[in-house]
Every structure is written in structure tokens, then in C-alpha cells.
């Protein structure tokens, strides 16, 4: 049986070929943290006003971030060291953008549809 390509393996394969190694370093501590759901929920609550009823969806989103190969590593740290407030903002921007493409948040916001995860496999369509 073919081993499942998880996020870590995917990054291991692709990052070596890119200049984005440092960005992985920016995201990885968050994803590895035992408080990842709390931290991600806090970001989403601050910027998108998510409520407690969405905690289950945030859990699913965090799991997707940790395990799906179809997310994009944040490139924001490429080209130089950042830290403090700038790094926090980049991390928040990363989480927010991933949330916008992993869930139907825009549909929820515009049309009031229930918030749900989308099929992230569609991020990579052919061949």
C-alpha cells in the first residue's frame, strides 16, 4: 500500500527544491504546538469574528493544515529574518488566507451559508 503523503513528507520533498525553507520554520512551530487549535481559533475570532460554535470546524481546519499536502507554506519569511510583531502578522495572514481557501467562509459571510470545510484536493486539479 502506498504511504500517505502527509504535510511533513510533502514539505520534505518540495521544500528542498525551493527557497522557502525558512517559511516552513515560521509555520511549523505553530502546527506542532499543543495549543494550535487555541491559537488558530484566536486568530480567526479576532479577524473573522468566529464564534464558539465554530470550534469543531476550526479543529478540522487545524487537522487539515497539519496533515493535508494541499496547503501552501507561507513564504513570508523568505529573504530575511523577521521577528516580533512582523512575524506575528505574517503568521496571522498565513492562517487567514489558508482559511479562506479551505472553507466556504466567503459564502458564509456573503450568503449566510453554514460554515464548512471545502475539498482541498481541488487545489491541484489536472492532469
Amino acid at each position, binding site marked *: 500500500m502506498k504511504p500517505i503523503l502527509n504535510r511533513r513528507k510533502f514539505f520534505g520533498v518540495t521544500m528542498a527544491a525551493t*527557497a522557502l525553507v525558512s517559511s516552513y520554520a515560521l509555520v511549523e512551530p505553530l502546527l506542532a504546538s499543543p495549543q494550535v487549535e487555541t491559537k488558530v481559533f484566536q*486568530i480567526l475570532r479576532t479577524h473573522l469574528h468566529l464564534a464558539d460554535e465554530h470550534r469543531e470546524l476550526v479543529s478540522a481546519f487545524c487537522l487539515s493544515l497539519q496533515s493535508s499536502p494541499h496547503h501552501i507554506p507561507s513564504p513570508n519569511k523568505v529573504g*530575511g529574518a523577521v521577528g516580533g510583531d512582523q512575524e506575528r502578522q505574517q503568521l496571522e495572514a498565513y492562517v487567514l488566507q489558508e482559511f479562506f481557501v479551505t472553507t466556504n467562509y466567503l459564502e458564509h459571510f456573503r450568503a449566510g451559508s453554514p460554515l464548512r470545510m471545502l475539498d482541498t484536493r481541488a487545489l491541484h486539479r489536472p492532469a
Partner: protein
Amino acid sequence: MVTYVLPQNDNNPSRQIRLSQNQAVYGYNMDYGVPVSSAFQAADDNSPLWQIDALKALYPIRMNLEALVATGRYQFQYLLDKKNPLQLVQMLKGPDHQAVFTYYAPDLGVILPGSRPSSIDDYKNIFISQKIPPVYDHYATDEGFAYTFLAGPNPAILQRMTQIPGNFPITSTHLTSVTAFAGDSLDAAIADGRVFYIDHSDLAVLNNGKHPQQQKYIYAPFAAFAVPKGGGHLYPFAIQCGPTPTGRRIYTPADNYSWKIAKNCVLAAHNTHHEVVSHLGVTHLLIEPIMLAAKRQLSVSHPINALLSEHNDGTMAINHKAIYTLIQPGQAVDRLIGADLQSTYAYLGAKRLGYSFRGNYLPSRLAANQTADTSRLTVYPYRDDGMLVWNAIQTWMSDFVRIFYPNDGVVQADKELQAWAAEIASPNAGRVKDFGNTPGTIQSTADLRDILTMIIFTAGPQHAAVNFAQGTDMAYLPANPLAGYTPEPQGTGHTEQDYLNNLPPIDVAVIQYSAVTFLGSMYYTQLGNYSQQFSSSSGTVGGAIARFKSNLADINATIDSRNQSRIPYPHLKPSNIPQSINI
């Protein structure tokens, strides 16, 4: 459950009232020489799910551009706009799609002090976090060049040569310059049906455009191709870079870098024709008035309006964006193509208005090009996959028409249908030439079936073929330039530097990468996936859709199998074909 009913069976007075309301809102705007909607309502705008898919396609482009800028390799004219999380969220939640596009696929302007490449590798090195498209592996060979005309972004132009064109006087000497044709003769190859050609001589009406830092050029070339006696690959063997032979050399593969520059001239012309005519002109701007006429003449209760609505999702919105943004001065089309906008608009208008709707049904187009015969041209992915999908749609439309129109008399008695057909063909409205067998009216179920097949094929598969090949074939610029940056070659003895000088500069390569990667990776909806409301409107409609989807699944499997033994051609695989033109 919604029930669809023909007007002759419907006494509901609100039917006509609603149509009159639509007719008061939507009219035809001819400002660009082709009919487009004069109105754009909030209801016509893209759905939030479309916006999410667009963001999915745009997001990696921004990541790549950030990485490119961070290398410090180039000093771009404009800086990347930075947004903090609050600004980002405001933009993403806001109504301004253009702001989102500009943020994620920004125009970085020219490179200072100059944008010329120092080596061919500069084009490859644009790809930092995104992979170089697979075309990179085969574009530089002559077989790869020929494959562009069989499975590339503009795959319906190749014609079989039945006699040597008067303005393109090729000979056996040109043919036999290619090793595979040693001992062959041009007359014998033509008689065998093994010679094909591209004629872009009508592009001579276009004027050269201007890059901010240098002159650019459009060409009007011919190119000839042939298959060896025993069959096999298609090979190019002759190129003339202008519309007449006077003062011009016909180049062959023996001409080394002069030949490579000649191939660039063909690609620049072919790709300009692709974007202006094959893509914008006869998919986007052909479908627009057909759908507009449906809004104006077919009631929401009409079954054909219900069908077409499924294939019109996002079309007016993307056309609105294309017309009022993409083709405006200084925007992507102006930056990419070799010609100036003024002559391009005129060419676009002439080609769109002169395009025969009936003459471009896929079997008719292939017959007219004399490329239908699979024994003469054994590998032609666009034709081979396209015919599978065409036939599946035609079967579905045959079923659909039979449900609502048991005989020709019912078609003839449908006043809304007749008004729709009349408006599409009218010189004062849709201006679609040869709309069916009896333009201006529809007299038979067979004609209606074929008209609907062509509409769905154009909105789905044909647009998929010309759109998604942009991402796979055009994002790496040297594989498919849209302009030349030196005049057409004269004489021989050109060098690698001459070839490099002919290619567009790096700032154009960056714009081309951004624009076509976005367009070519935005998949929203899937052919055959009809809404619950439509598919459950009656058991017979639902059953016909189920048969259609089953046929499409079989075609998916066939194409997967074919792709094992050819350079993969994914663009007419039904699972990669959207329901409508929405990008």
C-alpha cells in the same frame, strides 16, 4: 419541484411580464465592435464559491512573486503591495475582485534599468515556489513545436494541405531537409494527405505594438508540417515569416538559430490569434450574446433557459472583467501580444462577426480543416478527445430535446425559442453568423439539438481547451511567446543571442506567467454537474443527465488510458471541464 413548460402550453401572464422586465434592463452594447451586455447586475456577478476558487488559483502566484522579488535578482518598477492581516481580511471580504487580483497577481512593471534576459535560464528562474510547467521538457524540439498545434492552446487551426498555397511556395527541397523525409517528395506527401499547414497570413492587418522599453512585433507567417511515409510524429519542415514570398526566405530546420527565430514568429502569431480570436473572440464573446438573448427572450419557466442558465454561470461576470480590464491599454493583453490594441480590436471584431457558428461544430470544423481522418494524422489529442466529448453532449442534447419537443412542429410553434434564435442572428443584436441551418429561425428538433450541442461544447470543452492550456503551455514564456522583439529574420546565420533578442523581455515573462497561471488553474464547476433544481425537474431529465454523466465517466477513463501513451493532454478530460465560461 420546478416544472419547465413551453410557452405554447403556458397561460401564466407573468411569463411575458418578467421577460419584458429583462428586456428593459439588458440590451446590446456595440462599443467594442462586438455585441456584449449593456447591463451588469449584482445577480450576474461571480458567486462566493467562485471567489474562493479564484483565490486558490491566485494565492500560489503571489507566493511565487514574493519569492522572486526576495531573490533581489531584479529591480522591478513597482514594489509588492504589503497588507497586514486586518487589511487582508477587509480586501478578501470586500466586493472588489479586481483589488484581490491586483494584490495576488500584481503588475510589477518593467525591470530597471532594462528587462532583457542575460540567458535563456532567466525565464526558468522565474519559477521559485511554483513548478515549471511540463511543456519545458519538450517545447524546444521540432516535434514539441508541432505538438503545440495538435494539443496546445490553439489546437483547431491546423489544416491538411491539398495543394501548395500560392503565397507559400514550398518545395521538396524544404521537405527533405528533415531527415525523416529523406527520399520523399512534396507532391507525393500532399497526394498521400501527409502534409499540413498553418496560415496566419491574415494577421498582416495588425500593427506592431510597443513595450515601454522597446519595439515589439507581430508577424503573419505560414508553417508547414508533414508526417513521414510510414506514419509517426508530425514534423515541421518550412516556415515563411510573412504573408507573401517576395523578399522572404522559407526557413527549414537546417537553418539552426534562424529556424528557431522563425518558429518564434509562428508562435507569436499563433498565440496572438489564440488569445484574441480562439479564446476571447469565439468562446467568451460568442457565448455572451447567446446567453444575453436567452435572458431577454426565454422565460425562466422555459426548459432551454433552465438548461442554458447552468452553462452561463459566471460568464457575463468574467466577460465584464475581460472587456473592462484585461483588454484595456496597459493591461495584460496589451502587455503580452505583439500587436497594438487599436488594430487588435478591429481584427477581433472582424473575426468574431465572421465566425460561422454552424461551420464550427466540431465535426464540421475538422472536416473543413481536413484533419478528421485518424489514419492520416494518427495523434491529434484535441480532435480525438474533443470528438468523444462532442458526441456525449450531442447524445445528451438529443435526449433533452426529445423530452420537450416530440416533433418539429413543436419547435416551430415555440415563439420564445424563435424569438431567441432571431435575436441571436440579428444584425442589430447578437450578430452570430450561421446560427443553425436556418439562421433566424429553428425549424427542426435536429437543428435545435445541434445548436444546443455547439453552445454547451463552446461554453465547456472548447473554452477548457483554449483556456487551461494557457497554464500548462504558456506560463513558461519561451514555449509560447505572444510577441517578437526583433523584426522577422532576414537571411541566415543567426546566433543564440539573436534568438534571445527575439524573445519578449523578463518583465513580460513575469506578467505572462501570472496571468496565464491564474487563468489556467481556476477550475470552477464541472461538466455534467447540474443543479438539483434542474436535474430533479422531471424524472426524464434526471435520467438523461445520469446517462450523460455515465458517458463522461467512461470518457475520463479513456483519456486517462490515452495519456499513458502520449504527452498527457488533460484539457478535454470531462473532470477538468467546467460547465460554463467563468474564467
